[in-house]
Structure formats: C-alpha cells, structure tokens
C-alpha cells in the first residue's frame, strides 16, 4: 500500500463534502442552537470592532427589552404584527406559494378596516371592532387572491406579482392620505384623521388586544395545518401539485382558498396596527414587517409555536436595540446587522444538516 501511494497520479483532495443521513428534529434543533451561539459570537466580534464591549451591549439589549413595564409593553407591541403576519405567510409557504406580498396585504387590511373606523365610528364598539377585523381580513385576502388567480390562470410568477402589489398598496395609502381621506382638520400637512376612541382596540393587560388575537391565531393556524382536511390539502399541494391532482384534489381551488386565508391573516395584522398601535392609517403601518415575517416564518420551519418564540426573539432584539441606540449612541442599523448575522448563521447551518466535511486521512 505504502509503496503504491507514491505512484498515485492524483492526490485526494484535502477536504471533501459528503451527504449525510437525514437528521432527526432533535439534532436539527441542537444545530440551530449552535448556529445561534455562533451568530452571537460573530455579532460580538462585530460590536467589538466598533469599539464597544459586546457583553455590555448584549446585556443592554436584553435589559432594554425587559427592564420596565413600559419596555415589556413596547416589546410586545413590536411582536404583535410580526407574529400575526408570520402566521399568515406560513399558510402560503406551506403550500410553496412564495407570498412575499405580506407588506401589501397588511396595508390593504389596514385600509379596509380604516374605512369603518373613519366613516362608521359611531357603531357599537364591539360590532365595530368585529367588522374592522373582518374587513381587514377581506382586504388582505382579496389582495392575495390576485396573484393566486393569475398564477392559476396564466401561470404567472407569484414572487414578482406579490412583491409588485406591495408598492401598489403603499401608494394607495398615499393617494388616500392626500386625496379622499385627507383629514380636513389637519392644517397643511396631509394626514388621515386619528381614529375616535370607539374605533380603537381595547387594552388588555396594558397592551392593545392584538396580542390576544395573535395568540388565538397561533392555536388556530397550528390546528388548521395539523388536524384539518384543508391543512392536509395544503401540505400535499406544497409537496407536489401532481400528487395533489392525482389524489383528486382541486389544486386551483386550494391555492385560491389558502392564499385568501394567508392574505387575510396578514390583513388582520394591518387592522391591529391601525386600530391598536397607530390609531390612524399612514404609509408606515407595515414598515417592513411583511419582510421580517418571511425570515421569522422561515427560521421557524413554518411551525406556529416556534414562530411565537422566534417572533419574541426578534422583538427583543428590535426593542433592545433602540435602547442600545439611545444609551450608547450606536446606530439602529447595528441591530439590523445583528439580525442579518443571526439569519446568515442559521440558514448557513442548514448546510450542515445535509452535508458533512471529510478531511483527508492519509498523506
């Protein structure tokens, strides 16, 4: 053997990549945790490069999110739209329908529910809130039906379609702000009127009731996906449309229905934003939540319960960063970078769930 080795015409590469057996969910969870630790370390190095003590900064972030009742309320407030939107996106993603138009669906939900807040503010409070939730759902749902319909009919690309609809929705708010819904009472500066008290979401435990809606939706989406026939259909369509068709499912109907629900839930997030947080409709109501939600849903592997955990994590980071910013004068972009680093590591570690490295042994 050893003699022959010298004759070897080509060297074996130092490191090879080989496929590994599929890992169980426990091992994947451990890997994700390791990835998270790596992300924290890498983020720490970055902070250290900026000339700050990473431990101190991390402590500030965590403390910043929890140090007082007001801080905790602020964290929850950030979590609400993110949680609801992530759940909405999950339905579409489970079907492998790449709905990246949550942003637009949030806005349409906001617009539809604002209509009732602005023009029917005198309705009985409970009825008005229910109608606003329903309107939000219909607004977001209809907005999501558009790409689904065209995908079914003409095979259009849903990614581009949903993305473009975001901008249309955004400019629709601008139009309403400056045109038909402009508050006549605002002097000079175009804005939509603040909602009357009657049209605002009640506070539950100091934070608007959106968090209750969010938690209910976690349970509902979880049960819907796991235990209902429709949830089963979504999984099969996501798995393979051919298989779904073969099983006698009406694939087009399922796509329409699921997208309506997906957009509808995002629309509820829009309603919660206008009626719970902003008390008015402005072009900042989505504010990128629809995109962050994609990350949350993806990191959670489309599991509603994990979504809850990941949402909280992101909210803590977001809230804590604002405190970090005011305490140390660090730019808020730092928090975006930290988010990016976490995402990079967790998605990057996905590679290790499927492959392993083999280092050359001989020679």
């Amino acid at each position, binding site marked *: 053997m050893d003699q022959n080795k010298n004759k070897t015409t080509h060297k074996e590469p130092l490191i090879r990549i080989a496929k590994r057996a599929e890992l169980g969910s426990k091992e994947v969870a451990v890997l994700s945790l390791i990835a998270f630790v790596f992300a924290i370390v890498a983020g720490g190095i970055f902070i250290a490069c900026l000339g700050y003590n990473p431990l101190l900064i991390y402590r500030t972030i965590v403390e910043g999110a929890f140090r007082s009742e007001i801080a905790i309320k602020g964290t929850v407030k950030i979590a609400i739209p993110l949680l609801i939107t992530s759940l909405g996106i999950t339905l579409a993603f489970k079907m492998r329908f790449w709905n990246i138009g949550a942003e637009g669906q949030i806005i349409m939900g906001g617009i539809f529910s604002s209509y009732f807040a602005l023009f029917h503010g005198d309705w009985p409070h409970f009825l008005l809130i229910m109608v606003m939730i329903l309107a939000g759902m219909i607004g977001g749902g209809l907005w999501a039906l558009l790409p689904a319909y065209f995908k079914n009919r003409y095979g259009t690309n849903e990614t581009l379609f949903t993305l473009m609809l975001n901008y249309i929705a955004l400019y629709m708010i601008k139009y309403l702000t400056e045109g038909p819904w402009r508050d006549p009472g605002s002097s000079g500066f175009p804005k939509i009127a603040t909602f009357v008290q009657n049209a605002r979401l009640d506070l539950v435990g100091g934070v608007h009731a959106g968090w209750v809606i969010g938690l209910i939706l976690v349970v509902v989406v979880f049960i819907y996906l796991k235990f209902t026939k429709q949830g089963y259909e979504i*999984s099969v369509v996501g798995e393979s449309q051919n298989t779904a*068709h073969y099983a*006698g499912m009406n694939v087009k109907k399922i796509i329409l229905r699921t997208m309506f629900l997906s957009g509808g839930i995002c629309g509820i997030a829009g309603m919660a934003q206008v009626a719970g947080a902003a008390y008015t409709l402005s072009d900042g109501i989505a504010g990128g939540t629809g995109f962050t939600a994609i990350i949350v849903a993806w990191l959670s592997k489309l599991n509603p319960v994990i979504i809850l955990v990941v949402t909280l994590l992101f909210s803590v980071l977001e809230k804590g960063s604002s405190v970090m910013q005011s305490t140390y004068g660090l730019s808020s972009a730092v928090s975006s970078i930290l988010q990016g680093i976490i995402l990079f590591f967790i998605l990057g570690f996905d590679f290790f769930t499927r492959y392993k490295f083999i280092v050359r042994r001989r020679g």
Partner: protein
Amino acid sequence: MIKEKETKAAIELKGITKTFGTVVANDTIDLSVRQGEILALLGENGSGKTTLMNMLSGIYHPDSGSIFINGEEVNINSPEDSIRLGIGMIHQHFKLVDVFTAADNIILGGQGVGRWLTKSRIDRIREISSRFGLDIDPNKKIYNMSVGEKQTVEILKVLYRKADILILDEPTAVLTPQETERLFKILRRMREEGCAVIIITHKLNEVLAISDRVTILRKGKSVATVDTLKTDAKKLTELMVGRPVELSINRPKTSFKENLLEIHHLTVDNEEGIAAIKDISFYLNKGEILGVAGVAGSGQKELCEAMAGLIPVKKGAILYQKENIVGKSPNEIIKLGISMSFIPEDRLGMGLAASMGMVDNLLLKSYRQSSKGPFISKKKARELSKRLVKELEIVTPDVDTPVRRLSGGNVQKVLLGREIESEPNVLITAYAVRGLDINSSYTIYNSLNEQKKKGVGILFIGEDLDVMLELCDRIMVLCHGKVTGIVDAEKTTKEEIGLMMTDAVSEGGKTGGSKQE
C-alpha cells in the same frame, strides 16, 4: 484474443468502501476485470452497483480502498481523470445534444480536438465505427435517431476518446429485444479488440448471454464472482437474493366475462401538445391482466394519465361499464363509484407526498371520507399502515417516517398497498416493479394476481417482456402512440412483440388489434 492480454487486469478494485450518512452503499468490495473480458455486475436495486461504478467514473470518491488501472494505483477525483485513464461510462440516460449530428456529439467536449472542425474527424469516426462494427452515419442528427442508434453514438463517443474500459449502466432498459441483440454484438466485438467491459444489469438472461464472468453484489458487498459458463439463472438469483427463490409467475385463470373498460378511438396530447396517443381502441375485461408493452415513451404515460382523468382527452371515449368518463376530474370519477387505482410511474412526484409519512400518504385518496367534519381522522390510516408494514414486509423505522427516506421497493409497496386497499375495480399500474428486488417483485405479481382473481381488471404497463409473457393474459403493444397489436400472451413470442414494438410488422393478420398502414 491474446493470452497475455487476458491475464492482465484492466481494472482492479480492492476493499472499496463508500458510505452515505449511515447507509453503507459499498462495503469492502473487490472486483477485477481483465482486458478482453466482459464482466457482468449483477445485483438488485440498492445493492451498490451504480455507486461502485460512479467511483470509477469520478463522480464519487471512495471512503477507503484502492483502485488499480492496468496495475497502477490511481485516485480518480473527477470525470476528467476518469476519461484520461481510459474509462468510458455509458449512462442509462443519454447525454446527447439533440440538434447536433452524431459526429458533433462525439467530439463534443473531447480533449485535443483542436480549434477547427476538420473533415478528418468524420474519417476517424468512420474508422472506429468499422473497427467495432458500429453502424452509424456520422452526419445524421440525433433527433432523427432511434434509441438504439443514440446508444451507439454514446458508445462511439467513449471509444473516440480512446477509452478501453467501458462501463454500461443498464444499457438494455430502453432497447427492444432486437436492439439488445445488436448491442451485444457490438460488445462482443469490443471484447475481441481487447477492451474491458463492465455491464451493469439485473436481467439474468442477459448476463448469461453476454458475460464471461459475473460479480454479484448484495447489500453493498461483493458476495461472489463466478464464471458465466459454470452457472445458471437459478444459482445467480440465489446469490443475488441470498436464498432460493421460486422464479415462476402464476397466471391464474378466471371465469369473468364482463367487459369493464372500453376505449374507443382515444387520442391524447402530451404536455407539448403533440399527439402522444393516436386513435387507439381496446377493451379490458374483469379479472384479466392486460399488459402494455412498448419502448419507453411510446405513449404509456399519457394513456395511463388520460384514463385516470389527470390529463384531458382530445378525442375518443373511455367507457366504464358503458358510461363515458372522458372529461371528468379524478375526484368526480371517484364520486361516480368507479374505483380506479392508478400506480404512476413517478412514485414520489405523483403517487406519494415524499416528505410525509406512511400514514399521511395512505390518506391521500381517502382523507375526505376519513371523517365527517373538517378535521382529518388518522386513526384508520394508522392501523392500516401498521397492517401493511406487516403484510407487505415494508421496511421503515416508523409509520411516520417520511417516505422519501424509504428505499424504492418499500415506496412502491406503500403505493401498491394503498391502491389495493381501496378495493378498486380497475387497477392501472405503470412499471410496478421498476427498481424492486426480485423478492418484492414477486410479492407484487402475487398481489396483482390476487386482485385479478377478485375480478379486478388490471392494465399492466411493463418493460420486462419475459415477465409480461408469463403474467399477462393479453399484451397490447404501443409504438409511437399507436397500437401495433394486441396478442394472446400464451401464444406469442418475445420476438413477435419486439417486432411490433418497432412497428416492423407490416403484414400477417395474426395480431388481433388495429394495425398500421
């Protein structure tokens, strides 16, 4: 054949091991091929044949063990290395550019061709062709070629690159019996020219017909190497499976007379809108197995999918007990009380949901009836899964393990089990035993016969003519989407079917079905 050449090993593998995760695909395999010898590599699916050959062609790298080419140890890190060492691999699926001529495909990617396309390349191809007895026109375009001709081009391609070690991966899968015979002639010629040939196959009669020696792999291990002359099909099967296997297939007689399905002048387009099935008519009785033979791509897929209601029918009628089911969706067909089971060719892409477990997959067609309300009930499916695991000997860690982690044979058993459990009247199976080991294949033949005895009409799309001749009652032959004959399986021969597959039957009214002009 020169004595000296014969004794020298062209390839020698020593202790080759390759693992994929926890799966040991090759376990300390030894193998050697001499120059001027044809070695058959025999083994069931999943026994590691292809993995082993992929290491010779530089696609994988062994975890341990050594490879010797002409007595020298080598490390093959890439396909280029492999070509340089004179190894030529002919894959099951051809890798040719359709719009190029044979000559252009042959020199494509070749080393040392130079900057210009010279006339001399044609001469060299002609020279090689005549040396090995390959009959091919270098200027013919690939899209004008038959499957057999395409394969010949593939062979020429590796010979042009001066390969003297040839590996053919299941070369006969797509060939008619006549084309197979032609291929064997070519291989024998190469043997005379001093090439070393490895042919991967699981068809025993071919092994016996062509090889000098046989190396048998079982579960990743090389269990034996025997001289072909000193063995027979029975012994080879025993080595391959690991225990004696009964190799005959029953053809139980049934007394059903009723007509179950009638197909009248059916025309179906494929995805590209080109007619894949052209005006065909046939019938299927209760309690019979109607085989459908034909080279791959003769319209089998479209026929099945049209009958199952998955793709639209352009013209014609499909009568199920006199009721036309053309234009109905799969679900409507189910609702009509017609239980038609279709086991598609593409199991994981169409028949099953790959990342779902057995339980969820068994629910695929029955989830609507699983309970009354909006919630899905998995209790029955779970019980059924456990029963099927026992009855069909399905190997799975758990009934909730994603089916994509199961081996091909087990996947097929899940699919077949589900379809049979739905108690169909009509069962359509496309390549029901493709990729299955011998034992599983016979399990499946037996279950089909059980169904037949119950009065189920079975349409059996097959590829192994030997099996079809034994199992089917009648055999319908498709060629380019037309029926070139429907024959009684007991009275026909493999050669006759082979001729019909290539549409060579021009006259002689012994075939029962519609005939081509």
